[in-house]
């Protein structure tokens, strides 16, 4: 069966460290993969998109990798800050349909 797995437990890290979040999937062949941030009581906000033929994408303190062999994406936040505390969602894009399947999300807490 098709599955998208993100760390179900909350991730606590110290301010200034690098946070690494994982998105694993099975029985999908996504053309794209997106990462979103969601704060309590709000809708998700788009952060980064990476295509199947790209290995890595960066935006300021954010970095995403996409390994279609391992069926895994890693999302890194360097020099993390308490303001980075939120739930982070990965979403797999099915090519040609503009349809995205979301993971369950990982809650990140950056401790001051």
């Amino acid at each position, binding site marked *: 069966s098709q599955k998208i797995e993100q760390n179900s437990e909350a991730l606590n890290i110290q301010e200034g460290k690098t946070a690494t979040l994982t998105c694993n999937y099975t029985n999908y062949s996504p*053309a*794209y993969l*997106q990462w979103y941030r969601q704060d309590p*009581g709000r809708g998700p906000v788009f952060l980064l998109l990476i295509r199947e033929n790209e290995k890595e994408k960066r935006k300021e303190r954010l970095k995403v990798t996409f390994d279609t062999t391992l069926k895994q994406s890693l999302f890194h936040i360097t020099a993390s800050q308490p303001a980075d505390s939120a739930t982070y969602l990965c979403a797999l894009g099915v090519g040609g*349909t*503009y349809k995205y399947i*979301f993971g369950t999300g990982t809650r990140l807490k950056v401790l001051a």
Partner: protein
Amino acid sequence: EAGVAQSPRYKIIEKRQSVAFWCNPISGHATLYWYQQILGQGPKLLIQFQNNGVVDDSQLPKDRFSAERLKGVDSTLKIQPAKLEDSAVYLCASSPRTSGGAETQYFGPGTRLLVL
């Protein structure tokens, strides 16, 4: 640029009652999505519109849920009759449908529904 608007923000109803949610997407966005997000889970796609046509409604419980997008702009999602398990946040999102294929979705704040 105005974002995706949704109303109401909160709704409390009793089971077996009906409820409707409204979404106004970003101007010019061709694709509109309705998601259901149960507490502690990721958003689950209910229905996807391309202009005013349905692209995907495979996960919409059609015996109780219905949605329409009139004139390819605003959309309404209705539940009739509601069940306890429908308690969730209902998120509306839109995207511009560019020719590149990969789309950024812009989400509204959601409507939080509690069914008692």
